């Protein structure tokens, strides 16, 4: 490889810029001062214990977990149906249907949230965790479809035909042959949807009226300077959590590619 010191320097500076706010998270989360500023004054675990002692926060975290697990499951299941149908079959109305399913990718989230809110309010439906789950599933399904489509595409059609020739039914072929082969894709889809839902703010804020949800709670707390250090502690935990989840997703993605005999072509999306 040719050396390119200027480009390399630029890229490293760019990475530093990308990571700069995130790097500050652990630094100030362990800093022994309520004021978030340099120079650092000492080491403390106070902010972490303050975070753990916060009942509202625990409640919000519990709700976020319920939402994220539901959204990840629902989006992945809906994603399996859509991805399998679009890869395996051709049928009338396929392009507009797939377009509609993928639409939230190119629609600002606020529009999706407001359109849904207008309908829910008109029907006098009470906003709850359920309405958040419904809304976030719309946002996550396109990601699930994109991930699962590439998983289904790498399947060898002849394996399936062989199973059918050997007397398996369509369902047992799916269960015994197809499902195990696309399992890494399903896991990746689940983890990505979980991460998106867990961090999502707009729908949680507008469709979850009043319910404590983690992202909404964080947004509110950052405005009180006294609360900032414990939010930084929480942020440190969440970023670590996201990175671990993504690491696991990346591991399964690579395994999925290896299983299908493909070549690694880069990251997600």
């Amino acid at each position: 490889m040719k050396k390119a010191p200027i480009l390399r320097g630029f890229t490293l500076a760019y990475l530093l810029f990308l990571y700069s706010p995130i790097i500050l998270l652990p630094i100030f989360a362990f800093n022994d001062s309520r004021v978030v500023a340099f120079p650092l004054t000492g080491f403390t675990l106070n902010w972490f214990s303050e975070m753990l002692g916060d009942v509202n926060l625990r409640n919000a975290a519990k709700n976020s977990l319920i939402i994220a697990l539901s959204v990840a499951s629902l989006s992945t299941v809906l994603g399996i149906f859509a991805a399998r149908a679009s890869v395996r079959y051709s049928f009338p109305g396929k392009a507009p249907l797939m377009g509609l399913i993928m639409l939230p990718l190119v629609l600002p989230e606020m529009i999706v949230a407001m359109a849904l809110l207008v309908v829910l309010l008109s029907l006098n439906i009470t906003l709850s965790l359920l309405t958040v789950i419904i809304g976030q599933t719309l946002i996550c399904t396109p990601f699930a479809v994109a991930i699962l489509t590439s998983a289904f595409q790498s399947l060898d059609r002849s394996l399936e035909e062989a199973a059918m020739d050997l007397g398996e039914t369509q369902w047992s072929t799916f269960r015994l042959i197809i499902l195990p082969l696309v399992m890494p894709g399903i896991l990746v889809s689940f983890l990505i949807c979980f991460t998106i839902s867990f961090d999502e703010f707009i729908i949680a804020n507008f469709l979850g009226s009043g319910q404590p949800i983690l992202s909404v709670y964080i947004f509110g707390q950052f405005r009180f300077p006294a609360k900032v250090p414990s939010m930084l502690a929480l942020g440190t935990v969440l970023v670590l959590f996201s990175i671990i989840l993504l690491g696991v997703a990346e591991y399964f993605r690579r395994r999925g590619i290896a299983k299908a005999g493909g070549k690694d072509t880069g990251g997600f999306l």
Partner: protein
Amino acid sequence: MAATPKSEARAGLKLISPTAIYVILLLAVPLATVLVYSVMTGGRGVVALPLTIENYARLWSQPVYGFIMFKSLMVALTVTLITVLLAYPVAYYVSFHVRPERKSLWLFLITIPFWTSYIIRVSLWFVILGYDGVLDRALISLGIMDTQLNFASYGIPAIIFVLAHAYAPFAVLPVFVSLEKVDRSLLEAGQDLGETRWRTFLRVTLPLSMPGVIAAALIVFIPTVGDYVTPRLVGDGKEPMIANFIETQLLRLQNMPQGSAFAVASMTMVGIVSIAFVLLNRRFLRGQK
């Protein structure tokens, strides 16, 4: 397997039906409702007949609507320009100067910040750039400034800065993908024929990677123009953008028809700009044959 087209169509439709029903009921119907509301007569908490184009007429006659749309458009286009310009050299470096087996590691490093909570990243900028924040205290203690800079209150420049940071990783991937597709032998040919490296880049690599650049622009433009959190938090919330204004219309003023008309008009504008990007892309693709 001798599946006749008809039975295949039926099987496909049956399989996709759960997802299709879900998005039709919960996405298509709500969007259609907004469209219908936008031509109904409205007031505080009222949605009534007769049908009217009054709401759209008001978008023209009252300058505030046009101003918000224009401002959001300018902010989003500036952010798009900055992120794409910054992302190009990074994508170029990873594609041309990183060993193939290390490429996915670099891409992974670039995309991680995108997968960490958006709320936390934006709130952190607020802590860093806000009044008496990390930046202010550092500048004062270093003797560079003697009063607080409070960059977060600088309205539009602060919003542009935070958005450009938040959406930066989005721009790298599409550019990288298009650079990976550039046939390396073309570059050698260019240099064998006596072109300098810089001229080869301008005449071969850059045009070939334009589809990726335009895809990146689109991927950054759409979420930034509709961003809600950053204008709310940065700039003291005094510079509302489209999403903030929709919230005001729909939830604070409870005027659903007027809010719907504004949402429809804004999305039409976003659609027109996006189509312009796509057409540019077409032109480059055609030029490549």
